[in-house]
């Protein structure tokens, strides 16, 4: 597993903060400079999804190949509660996140029993099971998907019908998740996770209940993935089987890998890149897009394992040494 050495000096810290502020400013300005807000919302939701995945793989070292199941589970829950039971958006999103965590707990309990590559295969298989359940369950609308989820009013006060208002809500959630992930990684709990990733047997010998830590990381990751799925349902107004399909699990892995595994901004960057590519190229190249995604995957794994931000960091540390 590639490790990222993040030794932040005080100066680096200030620079990082400045950089992040610029990003945030750009994100706030985006709809006003003519970028299609629906596209931005979609990208932000997938960015959250990628951050959730990165928490698990980049910082804990567990490859989950079935993360889409949780994204989809939350999406369906939120969609169903808001559309058919009239729940308010914030309750719907909370419920979706909760259900995703519950599913994460269930899958985690089973998957944790194996390590490394087997863990990945088990998560894939369990996710596939979820997919088939969604396919056949009457409330999901199966192949048709769950359509026409209304946006409602946030806390009964702010109408979310307006693309702009919803955009800022999504942005706020995204920023909150971003800061939350940073908090977790820098906390003592996060340090233990990193220790587990680096050398699991040593962590065990130090007395840590490794399985418990891994399970908690898994549940946390699925919760955030669920939050992303719920927000996406709210933003786009529908949930479909694609949101739980294994190809999405693969895509989120690619987004994280491309952006930079184990970095903070990498996954978001990767998500924006992939979503942007799909949007931009879908008209031009049609279904070649899958081949292109596959090629990017192969290139990333063979020659670009650190991803954008990872390579950048690596370059910076090399530069600092000379």
């Amino acid at each position, binding site marked *: 597993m590639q490790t990222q050495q993040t030794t932040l000096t005080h100066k680096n810290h200030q620079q990082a903060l400045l950089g992040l502020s610029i*990003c945030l400013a750009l994100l706030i300005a985006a709809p006003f400079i003519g970028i299609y807000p*629906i596209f931005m919302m979609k*990208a932000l939701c997938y960015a959250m999804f990628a951050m959730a995945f990165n928490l698990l793989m980049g910082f804990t070292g567990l490859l989950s190949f079935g993360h889409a199941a949780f994204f989809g589970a939350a999406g369906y829950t939120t969609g169903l509660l808001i559309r058919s039971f009239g729940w308010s958006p914030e309750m719907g999103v909370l419920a979706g996140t909760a259900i995703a965590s519950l599913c994460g707990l269930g899958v985690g309990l089973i998957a944790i029993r194996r390590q490394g590559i087997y863990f990945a295969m088990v998560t894939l298989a369990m996710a596939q099971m979820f997919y088939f359940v969604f396919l056949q369950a009457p409330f999901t609308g199966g192949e*048709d998907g769950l359509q026409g989820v209304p946006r409602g009013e946030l806390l009964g006060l702010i109408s979310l019908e307006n693309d702009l208002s919803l955009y800022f809500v999504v942005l706020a959630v995204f920023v909150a998740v971003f800061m939350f992930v940073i908090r977790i990684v820098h906390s003592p709990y996060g340090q233990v996770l990193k220790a587990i990733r680096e050398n699991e047997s040593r962590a065990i010998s130090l007395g840590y209940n490794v399985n418990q830590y891994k399970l908690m990381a898994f549940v946390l990751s699925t919760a955030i993935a669920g939050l992303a799925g719920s927000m996406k349902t709210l933003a786009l107004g529908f949930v479909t089987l694609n949101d739980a399909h294994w190809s999405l699990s693969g895509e989120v892995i690619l987004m994280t890998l491309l952006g930079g595994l184990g970095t903070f901004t990498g996954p978001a960057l990767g998500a924006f890149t992939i979503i942007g590519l799909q949007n931009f190229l879908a008209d031009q190249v049609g*279904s070649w897009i899958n081949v292109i995604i596959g090629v990017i995957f192969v290139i990333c794994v063979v020659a670009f394992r650190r991803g954008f931000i990872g390579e*950048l960091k690596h370059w910076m540390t090399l530069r600092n040494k000379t």
Partner: protein
Amino acid sequence: MKLKKIISALSIAGLGMVGIHAQAQVSGDVIRIGFITDLSGLYADIDGPAGAEAIRMAIADLGGSVAGKKIELLVADHQNKPDVAAAKAREWFDTQGVDMLVGGTNSGTALAMAKVAQEKKKLFIAIGAGTSALTNEQCNAYTIHYAYDTVALAKGTGGAVVKAGGKSWYFLTADYAFGASLQNDTANVVKAAGGTVVGAVKHPLSASDFSSFLLQAQGSKAQILGLANAGGDTINAIKAANEFGITKSMKLAGLLVFINDIHSLGLKSTQGMYLTDSWYWNKDAETRAWSRKFFEKLKRMPSSIQAADYSAASQYLQAVKAAGTDDSGKVSAQLKKTKINDMFAKGGYIREDGRMIHDMYLMQVKTPDKSVEPWDYYNVVETIKGEAAFTTKAESKCASWK
């Protein structure tokens, strides 16, 4: 560190250029038709790029412009994903000034697009999709359902097969919403016509192996095997039915079959099968004439969907001409006033619930020795009058049409 953040900020901004690129001026002097269908997947043959060609033929036949405005066609692939279809439709309405949306195959995508079109108050004509929900539970002033729907298929195949002697039915159903509704609609018709439903078995979507389900069907000793599925599943099921000798004891009734499916399976395995469709290229002189033109361009005969694409586009553009505007509300009203008489339908009309009423045809697949040329696959057994084929006002679940 700072450099890294600036680079990531710039790349995000750069990607935003994609969004800016996508934004254009809203149309004023151009009539834009947006066509979203399955261009590369399961249904690419029955609609797909050839369907887009059919629409282009319609535009060309009107001289490329109408009421002084140029006509433009945008085409996109929804890959059978409702989310892609809805996103594309919304983007086109918001940023490309599309005036009218044409929906190709796949019911899920059609429902999704109908919702978007309703929200944006633009006209949406669903052609390739089958779900009758478009003119029932989900009916609205902006949706028109043009070619066929599951009710028509059920009333056609179900009713007529029972009349022809196929009284006991066993269903092989794709286990998803569309398959279930197809089975339900047909079962109701069969029972109303005096037939019986002996049993049914659900198979997973895109099942590769039908042997076990067919074995159960054979055990039921029913006369008719109703295939409540579509596309690859239907093809696989028919193949397996032949292989296991099911066709010797049961007749196949394909509930959603297009001529391209027959072409791919061959007459040997499909001969004698009943199916209902909204159009057949070899029906009369007018359909043959148009189909030959299509054949010259695309080297194959058109499916009913592709013919409907042509007809719908043509009727829409003529309605724009007659109404003198491309405002969706006015054009929709104009369309509902017009009688449709072209190579697709004679005496057709669009009802208040958005349903296009026209004759449907019960057909039977020819035996190989009776087929005189490629694509000569059907005998038209019966013409079902439009009013009898589609949902009646009494049965309708459309809230705004009472």
